[in-house]
């Protein structure tokens, strides 16, 4: 159980990058803990199992939030204050569509390969490469500013 708890902070950081919100990130990770805890000790790669739950949670949350417009019902948590270049980059990241953003984060934050990313976001490896190429084209404009 302690190994699961040790993953809390890394998972919140990952969810923060994918969702763009600390409030949603914490909610998603808490929910993932609920779902994963019963099975955590019995799976072959518990860390990957939890990561998959968090990534799925982020994507599900975003879909539901759009459909139900319920994100505003979450308790607001203070968002971190970043330097201006990071703020611009983060805005650019948020402007990507869900799958592009998840693919970029999984590739460049977690250093995952095409196959692992494809499995996490339910698409083909070739699609991952397309998603990342398009996302980078958008982020290039932000970074070059």
């Amino acid at each position, binding site marked *: 159980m302690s190994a699961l708890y040790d993953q*809390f902070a890394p998972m919140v950081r990952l969810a*923060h990058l994918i969702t763009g919100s600390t409030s949603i990130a914490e909610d998603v990770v808490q929910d993932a803990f609920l779902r994963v805890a019963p099975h955590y000790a019995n799976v072959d790669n518990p860390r990957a199992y939890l990561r998959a739950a968090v990534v799925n949670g982020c994507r599900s949350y975003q879909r539901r939030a759009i459909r139900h417009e319920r994100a505003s019902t979450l308790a607001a948590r203070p968002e971190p204050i970043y330097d201006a270049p990071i703020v611009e980059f983060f805005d650019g990241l948020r402007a990507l569509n869900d799958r592009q953003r998840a693919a970029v984060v999984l590739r460049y934050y977690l250093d995952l390969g095409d196959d692992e990313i494809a499995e996490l976001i339910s698409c083909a490896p070739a699609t991952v490469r397309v998603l990342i190429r398009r996302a*980078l084209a958008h982020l290039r404009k932000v970074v070059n500013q």
Partner: protein
Amino acid sequence: MNDTALEDRVRVMLQDIADGTPISEPPTIATLRSGTPDLDRVEFGRTRTLTVVGIAACLLVAAVAIFNHRADSTTTVSPAETAANQTSPIETSAQFTTPSVAPTPTNATETAVSSPAATATTITPTVITHNVAPTRTPTAEDPARVLVVGDSEAGLLSPNLQTMIETTGLTSMSTDYQNSSGLVRPDFFDWPTHLRQSIPAAKPDIVIAVFGLNDAQSFSSTDTQAGPAAGHAVDSPEWRAEYAKRVDDLMNYLSADGRTLIWVGVSNGTSDLIPRLAVQNDVVAAEAAKHQNVIFVDSWKHFIGIDGVSFAPYVLDPRDGGYKAVRDETDPSNLNQIGQEILATYIDNALRQELQHR
């Protein structure tokens, strides 16, 4: 900007954002049990059933963890204790069972799991080495003077410890603690100087030292005693050497003149502190192993996760074999009342054996 440079830039930016993410504490089993407000508020198809099933499964997983932990916990000799065991000219050999001080009743949110056959756990005896025989045999009329010194943890521990050891009828206890203090920042509070002034007046037979939680930091550049170690990271050789020197100095003084020193190691902390506190604890354990008249209470072993490296919100209570939440909910670096009692039990064990020896 070429593609490689862009990718590198994206990596750096993502890392910066992640590093700035504020992290609150993870949900406790108690929180899961009662249903988290956030989960209730979102209402995206989650049901109470999911919560109940989740809790039940969590408890099952925890029970397995406890079973493993209980198996591990039968071996509780610290490195210092092991070293002492190998060289001790004077040893206590009697098996010591936890005193009959009842644990504070735990409510539903405090007890994570009780093992199926929860019973008081026998604590492996601490073996004490004396290079000089104690000068006084404590009696009810002339009890051993016990002085607790250290940081805020010392202040929190004292009432629990006093309740336990006063049942021996052989001790009188006093406490001298300073919040936020330690051995790394003498500019804030200079313990070596303070103790060299207070010990001759207090004349303790046994000193219980509780330092460390505030020491997982670099030596200040204004600390003239730190020399070349100033500014070095906690895991650097320079930091280790300087901290070892300070611990050695204090152990030498507090265990001199017939005194016995019981040094209470740190009980670890939250995840971000654990690596630095582990270094601090290693240095202290190594120094304790070099000193006679010093008993090291290896709190780290009792409060760390079952994998030996992770933060543990729940640990074994040796008084009744239960597995309990031991962390302060607002600041998990600190122990809650149950945690303080458990730590006091281990110290009390060491103290009673010292009294037996005298």
